[in-house]
């Protein structure tokens, strides 16, 4: 059984994001880019399933400009067997990504699709387990049991394969890319597609009007008496 994992090249999550002065987006010039942490977790889970003998191959997929290949190489260095790069220089909206992914799924026919955070199951008509905090695969019965983190606790679902799983932070701790694996990754194949080859039209139904920073938090004030507190709650915060 093949497992397909999507990986996205994003601004490193430890970087302090700045909004561009013209409010059309965030600053990406000279900013460190890395693999989305949820995609790392998705890939780690796929690798663990493969290492336990339940899958034959892990395919890493990334969509975006040519620099996405760096992120794919990282995925290969972590242990994915081969990569697929869909070249797209304009920004891709979630629905476009889902359509492209659907075409790739038709080509590769994986039994499991593990994603960071991405909608796709509807288009494929597959069952899905989102916010997975635990994944147990039963190859014989072709069923995967997923524990999901929901607001009231943990929900356990049983899904027939093929299925879609999206990750939550608690699923696992991703491995580091070791030097021997980085070396091996150099010879692993990366296949390139364009959206046109896949017969997908990239048109967006969304238009970004404006990007602004959230309002800055004002600093707190230490009040000297209960009366002052009541006065402030009444007149300044308007809550009583």
């Amino acid at each position: 059984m093949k497992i397909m994992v999507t990986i996205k090249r994003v601004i490193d999550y430890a970087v302090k994001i700045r909004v561009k002065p013209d409010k059309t987006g965030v600053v990406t010039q000279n900013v460190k880019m890395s693999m989305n942490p949820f995609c790392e977790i998705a890939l780690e889970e796929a690798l663990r399933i493969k290492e336990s003998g339940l899958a034959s191959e892990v395919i890493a997929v990334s969509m975006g400009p040519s620099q996405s290949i760096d992120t794919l190489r990282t995925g290969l260095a972590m242990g994915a067997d081969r990569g697929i790069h869909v070249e797209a220089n304009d920004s891709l909206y979630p629905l476009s990504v889902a359509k492209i992914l659907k075409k790739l799924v038709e080509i590769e026919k994986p039994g499991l699709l593990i994603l960071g955070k991405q909608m796709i199951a509807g288009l494929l008509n597959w069952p899905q387990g989102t916010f997975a905090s635990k994944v147990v695969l039963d190859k014989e019965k072709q069923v995967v049991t997923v524990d999901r983190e929901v607001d009231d606790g943990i929900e356990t679902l049983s899904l027939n394969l093929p299925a879609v799983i999206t990750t939550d932070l608690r699923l696992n701790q991703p491995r580091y890319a070791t030097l021997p694996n980085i070396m091996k990754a150099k010879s692993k194949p990366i296949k390139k597609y364009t959206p046109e080859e896949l017969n997908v039209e990239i048109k967006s139904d969304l238009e970004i009007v404006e990007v602004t920073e959230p309002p800055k938090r004002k600093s707190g004030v230490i009040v000297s008496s209960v009366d002052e507190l009541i006065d402030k709650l009444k007149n300044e915060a308007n809550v009583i």
Partner: protein
Amino acid sequence: MMNRNCRATLRFLKRSHHQHNPSLLPSATTPSSQFTSVTGFDENFTQLQPNIVEHQDLSFFNPLRNFLKNKQLGIGIQHRCYGSMGGVVQRSPRFSELNDDDVRYFEEILGNKNVIQDEDKLSAANIDWMHKYKGASKLILQPCNTDQVSQILKYCNSRCLAVVPQGGNTGLVGGSVPVFDEVIVSLSSMNNIISFDKVSGILVCEAGCILENIMSYLDNEGFIMPLDLGAKGSCQIGGNVSTNAGGLRLVRYGSLHGSVLGVEAVLANGTVLDMLKTLRKDNTGYGLKHLFIGSEGSLGIVTKVSILTPPKLSSVNVAFLACKDYSCCQKLLQEAKRKLGEILSAFEFLDSQSMNLVTNHLEGARNPFPTSLHNFYVLIETTGSDESSDKQKLEAFLLGSMENELVSDGVLAQDISQASTFWRLREGISEALMKAGAVYKYDLSIPVENLYNVVEEMRSRLGDAANVIGYGHLGDSNLHLNVSVPQYDDKILSQIEPFVYEWTSKHRGSISAEHGVGLMKANEIFYSQSRETVQMMTSIKNLMDPNHILNPYKVLPHSITS
């Protein structure tokens, strides 16, 4: 009770110094009257006579240990004090005692808010970060500008009141806390950034700015500080400059002697020396600013600093490597300097004992190579302007090192959070040591070939009694040798000192690479400096601070400063 450390120091001095230089030998009195107090005043102030020590065995009574050994502070912190210096220091009779008139005078010039006699604040300011040295100061002054510092010092000089300049109080050699009742002059209120030139990268700020705050400010402007150390959240730039702090990036950006362009300092008599230049090059006269960089507050109080900051480069990569023995680490360093060259920004090493300590005591710290045992670990950081070419260079270097068997295994950080995890393993060792119990800490500069030998020799000397770990800035030949024990024990101390100092001296190393001398190593300075040099230092001290009010009992041997 004999304090073998002090006796050995004396013997060393007797051996190398001749009798016609009595000023360099510690003065001694008859055994019965020799006693110490680090916690407060003593009733008898014995007048020290410059006797030449000929044959007498001195007994050093050390009430410090007996008094403070198991004392608990109100908030439940175990007082861990040991006094290798406690046996030698006496409160000098030349200093006056603080009285109410003095306090009133300070209140007049600083305002009531900045004259602190509050118990809690005093107890925090009287003890150092390692909880090893405790003073008995009754007064903290918090000036807000250079003029106030000048008035304070002028007054203290006229009254012969001893003064301790204090910044973030993160020093590791007892240099930032009072020994007796010295007045603490805290620079914490002087924390303004005065100016920043975006073109040249020259920053001018007051001495009380916390290093991490300066780093955040510069980050917004696209620059970084040329130094980085584990204490950055608390240490202040004035203290960094006064101690010539080294840190993790020295291998790339050099020492503060190079990056500090100017200093404003106040001398003991209140004179303000404005050498606050913002010029990269200025060869007009003697370079006096260097006197204040590294003299640990004993020649003047630094009030403002102008520093050259490097631009922030976008591509930072961190690799964590495992080596099978020390000679591989050494060869790896040589290769790194050659192959990574201009992009190398840090080269640190730690031994397997350090790794075990960190992973056992620090939350969330895990070994990147969990399945195999390695003897040494090396952390390499590169900083450059081009992400892909830097990564290529680093990968090529690492893969080449693996093929040549210099490196047995390694991991490359894929994002900032992985890089921080690797750094935590190295930066967290000090914290892990504090959690593990008591620690004897040594900071040595030793030629790279012999660097690890002292760790191995110390290990065989101490055997099972202690956990000896070695780590440090291999790129600068700087070893941090730490002996971790469940509690302080003089028997163990006597096995460590003076052996470690003698060993370092024999290999022409420095007994304090970057931590400074402070109180801890004041009398050991002769292991790394010649008699003539120390004599010259004394002359300069006498010229700049004739009453010796600035940070007394520290830096220079006690006989000189009493």
